[in-house]
């Protein structure tokens, strides 16, 4: 299978619908098939990576720990919309500390979250070859 730049755009809250959970399943499969994978978090999608999630009372599985495994799958670029955070009264401090070990820099631990404004998000999207929105 050839390699392309895949972007997964997450726009929905983590619970309430199954979109976020099933999107994460495709993300992991794409990495397993050795694609160049990036994620974007826009609109209510930013809630997917907030820290301290507890879904016990909803009956839905809390799948947020899976985001911490993305670095091990070489998924190291998580673009978060600053406007979407601000509109919801959130800051980067409300997000999980998601990191990866940079093999090109003596396995130094580096942040995976990249804060971008709408213009930067659009520029990043223009570089992608396959965009899937959930």
């Amino acid at each position, binding site marked *: *299978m*050839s*390699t*392309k730049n*895949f972007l997964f755009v997450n726009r*929905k809250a983590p619970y309430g619908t*199954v*979109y976020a959970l*099933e999107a994460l*399943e*495709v993300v992991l*499969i*794409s990495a*397993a*098939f050795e*694609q160049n994978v990036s994620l974007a978090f826009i609109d209510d999608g930013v809630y997917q990576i907030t820290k301290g999630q507890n879904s016990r009372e909803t009956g839905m599985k809390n799948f947020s720990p899976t985001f911490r495994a993305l670095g091990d799958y070489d998924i190291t670029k998580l673009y978060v919309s600053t406007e979407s955070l601000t509109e919801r009264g959130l800051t980067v401090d409300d997000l999980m500390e998601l990191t990866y070990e940079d093999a090109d820099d003596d396995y130094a631990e580096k942040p995976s979250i990249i804060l971008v404004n709408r213009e930067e998000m659009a520029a990043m999207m223009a570089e992608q*070859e*396959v*965009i*899937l*929105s*959930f």
Partner: protein
Amino acid sequence: MKYTILVNEGPYQHQSADTALQFARAALEKGHKIFRVFFYHDGVNNGTRLSVPPADDRLIQKSWSELAEKHGLDLVICIAAAQRRGLMDADEAKRQGLDANNIAPGFRISGLGQLVEGGTQSDRLVVFGD
């Protein structure tokens, strides 16, 4: 142009199942190729053969089957999403010890790798759904 179509919504509940079908028809009429149609989320319900809408309504699942037969389309249903929602082909029903299967003609059940392959092998991957 070579397309892969991703359908993320079930029939009747959401217009995007109809829109995906109409897009597929229009693309084929214009002479484009469709590498694959992949059904995910509730989109897997486009592939049940046990749907019986009222007589004066469209039968979306049958339209997919007919389009697939006419144009040799590859209609792939995600196995994980299908199992969550009770869609089974005969082999899987047997494996799970279930007494029925419900996949419409022209559809097959496979993994998400088929969607990733669709992305790598097509000029455009078009997503239908919210």
